[in-house]
């Protein structure tokens, strides 16, 4: 058996590269011409985006009647996708903020990318409640502003809390991301010889000078932002779960929802980050910066959160039985055995069964295995939201008002479009900004910090 010494932290970056070679390997992709692979990738994602745009256009022209939603299932793909995308975003903040506070140095190499993913995912997520209103051009009424009808929003409604949670989350993530980008943008500004790029970088980097006096406040600001982003990310999915838990629908009205949703969000988010990173490190040849050790740690997080989600599935059934409430019991039996049982079992297989492979070191470190498992996790977590939303609504208290939900092609088109938007933004991002935080990676190199008790 191999003996591993857990007291020594492995280096974050392999091979101990020099500071300038870090610059080279991270900035090179921005300066070279895009590869053919990139063109192929972005044309696929743009096609998906176009499909989404057409579906959305039809929806706007004709109204939400073209979707599959109707009585009694008034929340369909729109809400399922919303919860799914918000969840994807959560991994980014977890990596950049929570792991920062916990001093997990391995986060450095993936934090920038994960944060960018958060922002893009929240953009995709935000789209859905906005179009769900049916007339998105009137969405201004979601905000409490003094309007001519003297109406105010209902501050005690979870749906309004959602507006605040998601918009705060987006803004704070964006600020956090931007603050991290400023030193790197300044480095790009100092490096580039292209006049237009230089102007853009100068404007964006605001005149950052790598000054020691600034770094001190900067690190403080980063710490503060991480400190705020941490409870924020927990609050966001908690509030999303309130959309369900605060109602009185059977299967939704449970106290387990907030932690269950947060765990699920981290779970699916890590799966998405891992999937995309595997491709990026390969394409950009930065395997020594985003190392296999890092990916293995992400798989461990997925294993842990996957178990939490599995626990929640089991606990929901237990509580339904233990509560003695026949309606609650019916809803859960209906989930497992009713008309949407196929969705339920897809979810269980993908979320609980497959991640068990990560108990084995061999699978945790095998790129193909982990990639496939993470794809399954994403599928499973999408179905989790589908199961929650649709099974409860389609069969609630009154059998006379039961009904089935069948998505229309426009629903599916918009879902495809949201993936298109997400990947298009990612592909543009990796071509325009450093995917790895240059300053942060430099700071965690072994030789970059003064040795203690050095020559005084």
């Amino acid at each position, binding site marked *: 058996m191999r003996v591993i010494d857990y007291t020594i932290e492995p280096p974050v970056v392999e091979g101990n590269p020099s500071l300038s070679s870090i610059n080279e390997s991270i900035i090179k992709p921005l300066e070279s011409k895009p590869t053919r692979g990139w063109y192929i990738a972005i044309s696929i994602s743009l096609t998906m985006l176009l499909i989404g745009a057409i579906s959305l256009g039809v929806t706007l022209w004709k109204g939400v009647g073209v979707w599959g939603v109707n009585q009694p299932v008034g929340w369909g793909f729109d809400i399922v996708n919303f919860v799914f995308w918000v969840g994807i975003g959560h991994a980014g903040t977890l990596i950049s903020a929570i792991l920062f506070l916990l001093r997990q140095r391995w986060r450095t190499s993936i934090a920038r990318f994960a944060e960018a993913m958060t922002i893009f995912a929240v953009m995709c997520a935000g789209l859905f409640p906005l179009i769900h209103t049916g007339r998105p051009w009137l969405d201004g009424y979601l905000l409490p502003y003094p309007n001519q009808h003297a109406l105010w929003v209902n501050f005690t409604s979870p749906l309004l809390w959602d507006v605040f949670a998601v918009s705060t989350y987006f803004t704070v993530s964006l600020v956090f991301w931007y603050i991290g980008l400023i030193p790197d943008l300044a480095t790009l500004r100092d490096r580039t010889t292209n006049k237009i790029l230089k102007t853009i970088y100068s404007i964006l980097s*605001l005149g950052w000078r790598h000054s020691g006096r600034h770094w001190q406040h900067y690190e403080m600001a980063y710490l503060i932002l991480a400190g705020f982003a941490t409870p924020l990310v927990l609050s966001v999915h908690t509030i999303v779960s309130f959309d369900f838990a605060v109602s009185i629908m059977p299967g939704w009205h449970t106290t387990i929802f907030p932690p269950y949703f947060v765990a699920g969000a981290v779970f699916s988010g890590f799966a998405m980050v891992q999937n995309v990173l595997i491709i990026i490190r390969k394409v950009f040849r930065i395997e020594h910066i985003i190392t296999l050790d890092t990916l293995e740690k992400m798989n461990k997080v997925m294993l842990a959160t996957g178990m939490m989600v599995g626990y929640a599935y089991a606990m929901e059934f237990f509580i339904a039985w233990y509560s003695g409430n026949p309606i609650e019991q019916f809803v859960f039996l209906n989930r497992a055995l009713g008309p949407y049982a196929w969705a339920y079992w897809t979810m269980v297989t993908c979320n609980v069964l497959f991640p068990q492979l990560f108990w084995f070191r061999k699978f945790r470190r095998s790129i193909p295995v982990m990639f496939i498992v993470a794809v399954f996790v994403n599928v499973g977590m999408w179905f989790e939201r589908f199961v929650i939303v649709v099974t409860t609504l389609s069969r609630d208290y009154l059998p006379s008002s039961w009904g089935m939900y069948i998505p229309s092609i426009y629903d599916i088109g918009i879902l495809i479009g949201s993936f298109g938007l997400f990947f298009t933004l990612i592909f543009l991002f990796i071509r325009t900004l450093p995917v790895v935080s240059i300053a942060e990676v430099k700071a965690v190199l072994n*030789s970059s910090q003064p040795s203690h008790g050095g020559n005084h």
Partner: protein
Amino acid sequence: MENKILYSVSGIFEDVNKLISAVKTVTDSGYTKFDVHSPYPIHGLPQAMKLKPSKLGWVTLVFGLSGALFAFLFMYWVNVIDYPLIVGGKPFYQLPAYVPVMFEVTVLSAAVFTVAWMLFIMFKFPNNSHPLIDTEYMRKVSVDKYGITIQASDPIFDLTRAKEFLQSLGASEVFEIYFRESNVKPKIFDKKFILFLGITSLIVSGVTYFILNHLLFMSPFNWMHEQFRLNPQSKLTFTKPETTNLTPVEGTVARGFLPYPYTDRPDLAEKNLINPLLPTEKTLKVGKEKYLTFCSPCHGNFGHGDSRLKGQFPNPPTLHSDKLRNMKDGGIYHIITVGQNIMPGYASQISSDERWAIVHYIRVLQRAINPKESDLK
């Protein structure tokens, strides 16, 4: 060279440990206006520079707490004072339900203001014309070198002494850095810049005007016309009736909405219907609220027929006409209930009592404009 103003003397260092000990010497020899530049934050540097701990946390505290307080007071004012609305039979003031929004606003204001304060007030950014920017020195420290900069404005600064000092500390290269022309002459009054501002504001205002006044009234954004919807009790055309439960059982009567016998007989309505409510303060309040919500978009806040719909719906006549002032309450009630010509009926949206309250409120408006003799006393 002669007429250039010196900003600083800056030395490049190759090694972190050497840098830290050099910084300590610089600090100890009495320089105050110096700075250190490095491509990443270095542990122990603030201590070596003898900097006081960052006070940024206080900014966060102040703005975070004000955010929380503002959110709380605002929600209290809305829910209890300005717009009390009973939801689910719960009290107006419900602290637990305010917590999520208070929390989000706290985080938002703390995070945004901390960063803005740091960047714009502490660092005085944006500052792209700083003399250090775009120098050989800056290009080095942004990759893999470290630098110490001693400013010429330091009280004990002396050009040759400072240069030798940095060299003696182990600087591999020493630069003299000068202010640029542009540091002296502000660029804001540049013709090009003013032109740029002008064009930008022209485009922005044009686009805004177009969106608010035209785009929003085009299909499919038009506000009220051409709705793909079902009229009450009409036949389903776009989906199968069995898939919905839109059609109620025959003979269903909604609570508070009794059948109305005078649909086609305004004359009988005016004759037979009597306002069951007294014009008490409470009634008038309800009437005002309902009037402002349902009627004011077309009839205007005071009933002058000054619609807010910008011609999207024909403007109604004033409610202060003699015809209406002499009409009995029942007649106005009838118009609200079944509508008149193109004005739709409101029977399905406003309960019968509320309709009567609106009638009272219209009387108040009428008497405010055309008071009776007795009112003037």
